[in-house]
């Protein structure tokens, strides 16, 4: 019997010795892909010749759903865009509506938004680096980073009451003031995070295997990165120092000092270095913001003894309203940070948008009317006719909300400009010419978040 080629063994007699390209389907559900996406790769041996990226598996009609309900109902939906750093989405959407309304935030609220956004950014970068390191076999790094993220998520939980679906942003402000002793807790969490980052630096940055797998892999030149409108860490890793926080500062970003780290490599390793440096800068921003945040501790300007909300309402019904508005009420722990003093500090003084504090709602007819005018169907927040685009620096780049108002209480159109869509559109350029084993690490360095990409 004649010697058979391997090809003939698999494909039958007479299939010859010629080579042909092989189509390999990655995903939509692939164990090594942390996101539902399909890459149809054409391989020549182990080299990727062509890659076709297909998305949309997590499409939940975010933009359509926003058009159906009042402005405030879109806020929980924004939690589910980038679910690793939901606070930034919350604030980004709220800011776009605020721009439509022409509202100015209180200074304390601006700082709170900065602090919470930066904590979220660190969470996002930790997840990205941890997951991409795990895909290269460094499970230790993943565990360390998830440990650090846990400390930060505890902070988020402390402020918002939830870890993931936080819904903390409000049009005109935030849900509640920061809890007591928060700055100290942040300090503690940052100390732990810094230790983890140190360890990861020692584990990865000079690691021969890691460098071999990352340097020169997934390269996208600066020109192409710009042409594909890629922003965020990927753009900065290509040497372009564009950061919305620096270029067009919003909230309190013009008052905190930070650097915009850049790298020249434009490869996966440069992206890793940029993210590592950005986490340090984010911590610096938060520390600076805590030094400057106005308003001091909460609950200092209380007078009198708090009373029960039920008793408060009863007194109001009996007509004993004299001085009632000055008496604070005991709020349930779920409403922590929402007493009048705290709420006024973190929300704009604009009755068109911001719910009155509970004392006012329970204790005065004006407050009650105000409350219902904001919550009744057909009333609510009603921006003037117009449109506004508000970009913020999300963890993956420029996150923009474009809101069109027809003057009613429902947004006419909400468009989210997802920061991960441009990198995914350019993903095939990063993969082509590379090895098949580099598909997953490159995909990891892009940090695709399905919720945000597919909306």
């Amino acid at each position: 019997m004649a010697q058979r080629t391997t090809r003939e063994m698999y494909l039958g007699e007479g299939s010859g010795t010629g080579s042909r390209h092989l189509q390999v389907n990655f995903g939509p559900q692939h164990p090594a892909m942390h996101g539902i996406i399909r890459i149809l790769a054409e391989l020549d041996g182990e080299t990727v010749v062509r890659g076709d990226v297909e998305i949309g598996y997590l499409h939940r009609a975010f933009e359509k759903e926003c058009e159906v309900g009042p402005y405030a109902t879109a806020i929980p939906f924004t939690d589910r865009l980038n679910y690793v750093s939901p606070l930034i989405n919350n604030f980004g959407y709220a800011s776009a509506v605020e721009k439509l309304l022409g509202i100015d935030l209180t200074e304390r609220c601006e700082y709170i938004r900065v602090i919470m956004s930066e904590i979220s950014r660190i969470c996002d970068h930790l997840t990205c680096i941890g997951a991409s390191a795990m895909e290269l076999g460094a499970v230790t790094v993943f565990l360390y980073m998830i440990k650090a993220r846990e400390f930060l998520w505890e902070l988020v939980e402390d402020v918002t009451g939830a870890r993931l679906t936080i819904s903390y942003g409000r049009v005109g402000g935030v849900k509640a003031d920061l809890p007591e002793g928060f700055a100290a807790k942040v300090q503690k969490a940052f100390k732990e995070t810094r230790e983890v980052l140190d360890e990861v630096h020692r584990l990865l940055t000079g690691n021969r295997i890691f460098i071999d797998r990352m340097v020169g892999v997934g390269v996208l030149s600066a020109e192409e990165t710009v042409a594909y409108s890629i922003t965020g860490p990927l753009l900065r890793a290509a040497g372009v120092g564009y950061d919305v926080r620096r270029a067009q500062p919003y909230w309190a970003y013009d008052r905190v000092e930070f650097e915009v780290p850049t790298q020249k490599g434009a490869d996966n390793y440069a992206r890793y270095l940029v993210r590592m440096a950005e986490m340090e800068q984010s911590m610096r921003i938060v520390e600076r913001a805590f030094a400057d945040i106005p308003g001091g501790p909460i609950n200092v300007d209380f007078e009198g003894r708090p009373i029960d909300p039920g008793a408060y309402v009863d007194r109001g019904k009996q007509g004993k309203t004299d001085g009632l508005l000055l008496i604070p009420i005991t709020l349930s722990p779920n409403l922590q940070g929402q007493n009048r003093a705290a709420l006024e500090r973190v929300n704009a003084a604009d009755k068109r948008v911001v719910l009155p504090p509970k004392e006012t709602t329970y204790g005065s007819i004006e407050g009650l009317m105000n409350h219902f005018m904001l919550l009744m169907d057909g009333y609510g927040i009603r921006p003037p006719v117009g449109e506004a685009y508000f970009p913020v620096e999300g963890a993956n780049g420029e996150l923009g909300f474009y809101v069109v108002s027809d003057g009613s209480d429902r947004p006419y159109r909400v468009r989210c400009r997802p920061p991960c869509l441009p990198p995914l559109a350019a993903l095939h350029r990063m993969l082509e010419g590379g090895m098949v084993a580099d598909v997953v690490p490159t995909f990891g360095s892009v940090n695709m978040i399905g919720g945000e990409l597919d909306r």
Partner: protein
Amino acid sequence: MDGSRIIERLRERFATAIVETGSQWRDHTAVVDRAAVREALEFCKTNPELSFDMLTDLTAVDYLKFPGREDRPRFEVVYHLYSLPHNHRVRLKVGVEEDDAVVPTAVGLWPIANWFEREVWDMFGIRFDGHPNLRRLLMYEEFEGHPLRKDYPINRRQPLIGPRN
């Protein structure tokens, strides 16, 4: 460059092809005639004073149910441009009629327009003339209709398709 001067520059260059301009909340907008949009985008990208090297966003709005716009084109395609060297932004819009929903593509200028335009086709059913591969981006091929159109009801369900071949 200040937003109003960007608009002025566009007016100088395109005169009557700029149908309407406006500024609201520090955002400057120019509505461009569809015949001139390709040129206007190219001008925005290549003019050294403007040099909008990033197409930040491309989307569309369906004005079917917008009060007071009954006599205007149904759709508007919206381009958000950003310039890295000059750090300025501008918004260009193009009115598109329902029965002739075609806009020239911007893929030749910014490759990212490829996916953005696919999404607009997917969601609004606006075609982009000259687009190399105008497939749906988020929905599946067999999906009927364009979900972000205002006459697509929110509660309409379509049966999920089975696996192909």
